[in-house]
């Protein structure tokens, strides 16, 4: 089944302020006791959104003004820590389509790309400006244009960066590499045979 070519994403934004937001915070480990990713969306940022008694805290992710947002705005080194794919899975399943942050941890970035969820980097100043605009008017839509590498909100435009390999894969609809990986078994077996520690397939 061909994958969607992701060239642009439009939607409302929610600011999730902070640097070094780790994947334990995105999805606390206790919600990973599961054999499927289904249902993870409701636990996204659970301890950020709830106090110890399970009551909702004041946070943009609980703010009805931002309900239905499709794009997360955040700080430096987003998604650091554990390699758990549960983190981008939870964000996806909570209805988000992209993350705009100052930077991303490597494993999170790769996991998100494989799910077709672009993670793009913008400057602190630009993310601050976008956050201010959407705080003032949460109905504003942001358009993330992968071809032009721009974020457009109202009449303003901001540049973003994304690793070229990820941009190419998203735009070509090849963000999940499994089909390509399956397509070269002969080359794979040749490499394996040349590796003494691997040995032939059993």
């Amino acid at each position, binding site marked *: 089944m061909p994958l969607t070519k992701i060239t642009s994403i439009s939607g409302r934004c929610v600011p999730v302020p902070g640097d*070094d937001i780790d994947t334990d915070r995105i999805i606390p480990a*206790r919600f990973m006791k599961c054999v499927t990713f289904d249902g993870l969306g409701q636990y996204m940022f659970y301890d950020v959104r709830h106090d110890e008694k399970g009551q909702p805290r004041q946070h943009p992710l609980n703010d009805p003004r931002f309900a239905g947002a499709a794009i997360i705005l955040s700080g430096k080194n987003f998604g650091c820590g554990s390699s758990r794919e549960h983190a981008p899975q939870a964000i996806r399943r909570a209805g988000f389509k992209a993350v705009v942050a100052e930077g991303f941890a490597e494993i999170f970035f790769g*996991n998100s790309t494989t799910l077709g969820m672009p993670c793009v980097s913008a400057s602190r100043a630009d993310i601050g400006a976008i956050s201010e605009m959407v705080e003032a008017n949460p109905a504003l839509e942001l358009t993330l244009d992968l071809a032009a590498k721009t974020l457009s909100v109202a009449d303003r435009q901001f540049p973003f960066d994304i690793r070229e390999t990820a941009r190419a894969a998203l735009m070509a609809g090849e963000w999940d590499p499994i*089909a390509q990986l399956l397509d070269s078994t002969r080359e794979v077996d040749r490499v394996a045979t040349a590796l003494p520690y691997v040995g032939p397939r059993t």
Partner: protein
Amino acid sequence: MPTTPFSFALGAGLPYFSALQNQRPIMSTSGKTLFEKVWEAHAVRRLPNGQTQLFIGTHLIHEVTSPQAFAMLRELGLGVRYPHRTFATVDHIVPTDDRDEPFADALADEMIKALRKNCRDFGITYFDIKSGHQGIVHIVGPEQGITQPGTTIACGDSHTSTHGAFGAIAFGIGTSQVRDILATQTMALSPLKVRRINVSGRLGPGVYSKDVILHIIRKLGVNGGTGFAYEYGGEVFDAFSMEDRMTVCNMSIEGGARVGYVNPDEKTFAYLKGRPHAPKGAEWDKAVQRWRAVASDADCRYDDIVEFNAADIRPTVTWGINPGQAVFIDENIPRPSDVPESERASVEEALAHMKLKGGQPVRGIPINVAFLGSCTNGRFNDFVEVAKHIKGRRVAPGVRAIAVPGSQAVGDLLHEKGIDRVFIDAGFDWREAGCSMCLAMNPDKLVGDELCASSSNRNFKGRQGSPTGRTILMSPLMVAAAAITGTVCDAREIFQAPS
């Protein structure tokens, strides 16, 4: 699934290491790093988006990040292509006290059953809970001799970087990549740059590998390693045991580096010799020859080089909510006004969570819990070193102290040598092998805002199981000193001249 013409056009006919050649001048006569050599030997082809299809010779799996991958495999009607190159164990969810099945936690029980079934269905070697070989995946791999120099290793766990201690290139991966490796024994990846980190000189008494990596992360930042593999070397690493090297490589990811490694040497070979999955007989000699050749060449080119002096490193502890927020034991916690404006909010957030004040000494902070164990510091030598110093001492009243061997083999050996007794006599709760309180997917958890002196790797908010729980990372001996005094303290002052 059809391949697009695009992939044929770019994918076929290129040299194996084309992705690297894009980055490095072909005319260069300089030698190669271990990373480059291993990458080139495992590169299958260049993918249309410019990434490399990389062969993963060794795949390790555990119960948390693999069941969804097997489900995807079944959904796609795919099998496991190289079942003899995947090895499984169970670690995150296993209780460390009562291990009889079914587990009290029905979800945990479902996970171990799923792993067992998946391994059986697909013919995968599984070190089960009753095998005598179960343990934390990053401890089991090396002790079984599965982890070898010059190999590529992947596991759905960020601390896979641990295996780099043997001169392997080891990646933490997500579940979709677990699926990719099960189905094809390959994954799509871009090459990393290599940063050489030299630590020269000799560490002072009471300063350990854990202090070295906490110091490196503090200085280079929690995202300083993004895009890099860290190659650790210098006199300190030459002198380190394999266990010490594993401790450092383990926490590479906490510095943002997905991969960390040490070039293999005689210590590496001595550690591996005779292990169950290590090569035997004539194969052993050939393997050692290959392993020697895979080390970085003297004239290789690094993308970056960073120098540290061992004499500058003192026992280091974290005070905040990421592993880079750390100070020497005799320093004060920074005030928000001490740091650049861009970091102020992070410092304030960390202080608020930790219930600490900027400017206060880190020494003297009262603790509630002491945790010895994890894939960072749950190895034989870690316990031996602590045992040397705690003999005859007692855990402070009111402190809950637990010691958790990283594998059944580690636990058995400590028991055989009577070392478990030293911990039990000192008032530690001696447990069975598992991840335990490092990440609280099992019954070992902090309660409320308890503060834990921990030999693990992450001090993230909520990491140890309570959303308000607090973690201070430190070396095993510093954990023991905190357990005995009930406060964060300098182990060098508590114990007689640590070696």
